[in-house]
């Protein structure tokens, strides 16, 4: 079958039931997408299928046939992120840096992909909308308050406002 990952076309002949998570990691070497649970309970494996967040561990490769898969490695190239000084980044990635969101960083690719998908459809989410969209993504290091703050910053950025000051204390 044929599928497009981060803009590159690939042909795959292996087990069509293999989850996209293991396909991008083991077969394509795109290791930014992470394994956390394998049952759809943590969101570490989140990628985009035609721009919408899905759990890579719950999506067989066959479901991605003929569609566009985006992983964290390809996120910046997909959108509206304005070029930063060095590197082209998605607004969400920039907001994540502004707020120093990551601790260990392991869950953060999934968090960023989930947040980017949320903002693509809901550019100015309320706290309740953030709760609903983000509660499927676990962070064992406990970066949740900063994730929320960074999503608000990214939303403000998208709206053309100046990136706002961090809202969680001084972080």
């Amino acid at each position, binding site marked *: 079958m044929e599928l497009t990952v981060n803009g590159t076309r690939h042909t795959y002949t*292996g*087990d069509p039931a*293999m*989850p996209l998570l*293991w396909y991008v*990691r*083991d077969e394509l070497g795109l*290791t*930014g*997408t*992470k*394994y*956390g*649970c*394998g*049952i759809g*309970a*943590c969101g*570490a494996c989140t990628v985009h299928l035609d721009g919408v967040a899905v759990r890579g561990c719950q999506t067989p490769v066959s479901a991605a046939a003929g569609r566009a898969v985006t*992983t*964290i*490695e390809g*996120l*910046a190239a997909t959108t509206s992120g304005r070029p930063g000084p060095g*590197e082209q*980044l998605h607004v969400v*990635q920039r907001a*994540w*840096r502004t707020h*120093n969101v*990551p*601790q*260990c*960083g*392991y*869950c*953060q*690719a999934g968090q*960023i992909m989930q947040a980017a998908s949320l903002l693509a459809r809901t550019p100015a989410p309320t*706290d309740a909308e953030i*709760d*609903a969209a*983000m*509660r*499927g*993504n*676990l*962070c*064992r*290091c*406990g*970066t*949740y*308050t*900063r*994730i929320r703050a960074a999503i608000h910053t990214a939303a403000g950025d998208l709206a053309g406002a100046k990136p706002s000051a961090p809202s*969680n*204390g*001084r*972080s």
Partner: protein
Amino acid sequence: MADIREIDRREFLHGLAAGGLLLVATASGCRRVSDTFGGTAAGSGGTPAPDGPPLAPAVYLRIAPTGDVTIIVHRSEMGQGTKTSLAMAAADELEADWARVRVEQAPGDEKTYGSQDTDGSWSIRGFLQPLREAGATARAMLEAAAARRWGVPVSDVAARQNQVVHASSGRTIGFGELVAVARTLPVPPKEQLRLKQPSEYRYIGKEIPAVDLADITVGRARFGIDQRLPGMRYAVVARPPVYGGTVASVDERAARAVPGVERIVRLPHTPVPSGMSPLGGVAVVARNTWAAIQGRNALRITWHDGPNASYDSGTYRAALERSARSAGKVARAQGNTATALAGAAKRIAAEYYIPHLAHAPMEAPVALANVTSTGCEVWAPTQAPQGARDALAKVLGLSADAVKVNVTLLGGAFGRKSFPDFIIEAALLSRAVGAPVKVQWTREDDLQHDYLHTVAVERLEGGLDTDGKVVAWVHRSALPSIGSTFASHVLYQDDGEMAQGITDLPYAIPNLRGEAGPATPHTRIGWYRSVINIPHAFAIGSFIDELAHAAGKDTRTFIAEMLGPDHIVDMTRAGLTGKPQNYDASFDEYPIDTARYRGVLELAAQQAGWGQPLPAGQGRRIAVHRSFLSYVASVVQVEVHPDGTLSIPRVDVAVDAGTIVHPERVRAQMEGATIMGLSNALHGEITFKGGRVEQVNFAPPQLAAAGDTQRTGYQIMRLDEAPREIHVHVVPSTGKPGGIGEPGVPPTAPALCNAIFAATGKRIRTLPVAGQLAGTGAIA
């Protein structure tokens, strides 16, 4: 010394051979690598005398002729920010331009780096000084080189941002240009170093993005799971479900039939207590992770469970309660508690239950090993690379020199990755199949075979006099000790475990007793972020609130009264029966200071708006605890809804950890510790039935929403339940640094449950809170 020379050669290639200046920092001062390891002995830094202090360099500092600075950090990075903060300390004293600084992770090598065990919230406490000295040493040598070049007194020049400046003439010269001369100059002895005054700090105490931040946000950071080698195979292991169990028989046929599965390998069994060793079982080696998982699922294994098949959490709780209700092994005794209790105006007792917890780092254990005819190289997210190296050498029959342990980024650890069992599995499998093998633990494996946080019953009894002052305090703690993982017949907590809250209790109570009750182990017990402080601090923090309530006093005022006038607690007269324990520090260096307790207590209370009225259904309470030589007070504000669910509008955390290197990461650690502490308290529970862990995987989000205990799922706090605001207040200090990674956890759970009591009148004595609040929300 062979391995040191090997490192030396490697460093020479990168540094000295290219004309760089390379220094190592040791406890006794800095040395040039060429001096230390037998190169040209130029200068007074000198070769260590054979009977001199042990060579334990904390870090390597390298300045290349280009002026680029490399700092090799020997601690593991797992989100606590150590790679950044240690490098900041060295770069500050060096006057390096941060943009020119690269930070490298050291491989595991005890002889070169000293202990690399990244645990005990130790990194800044142990290595701030050596790192600053390393930076200051290099700066002094560069300044001397510049002074010589210009023919001016060294006192007239000063390093600034990767240059040396001659103030009166305005001349400047870059570090890179000075390296060739600087490396031939004497290494100044420690006593002659001029360290900066706090007002001169350029990086220490300032906000600097973590060195891995940019890579993490674009998916470029490399964790253990991301390591790859050509020809690498993927393995998943079926381990005995009951601790100490063995394989009775295996039917491999279905597993072999899975496309991509290449080999089925039996791993050797380790008898109980298994210590650092793997549990044994059956491994499936395949062409990719998915095939390995499918193959493992297809194995038909019959197990011999052994004696621990009887382990049942309900029964075990009853056994711990019996233990905590009878006299135990006395660890601290002052005055006469029996008489004081008998004569007390009010006497109350309470029992607390704190269950097993699983670390569940988001990156489950994983390791890549390549064992060849000559040696073994591994890549692993490990907190203890040296222990791993020694264990690998032993298992493989190699000398330690032939084993290299590369430390990757750790996708969370919390104590789990101090154990090398998963790394040994990878090496055994690589040797068996003759190819590099990456062992992947699934989440199911991680929960089923963790080195769990212990399970505890804590019983407290207290007496109040007519003024509501505490005159007697008896604390008995029954829990299986971490020592039981390493040695048979360990039934009691050791002095170090008792000193995590019980024997180091700071309160001025005339009649005081701390005892450990016996507890038989049935599973592997390990270190979990803040360790035995978790049950001890929960019980102490809750009981103080119960006593305050009984005395009719405000908890904050009551704690201040218990602390008494500001003083240093005299631990020589504390009635300790064993060796005084203070997180590997002396009480002279790091005394128990009630003024610092009071400081964080007052700061957290004030900032949280203590005493200001709250809406109906809300409560606000406090707990304070010292651990890992730092003082933390938490104020939790909670709202309990009519359906028994709760939300947490705000948490205030005050921390006094002495000198702070990286305040932004300190706040991050306190925020994370708060959320982990709340998660432990609200949901955290691993239960056993028939010797098996009942929680199979993470509780899925749909079920977690119901807020009830999941027998089959391990529940972790999610974003929607997290506190809306966490305010971290750092006490400004130039004192000796304390720990940061762990001390935020212990006070959180008691503060939460005290706040729940304030909101509802319901006292939580059994953790987790889970569904216990159903029907209480309306009381407020």
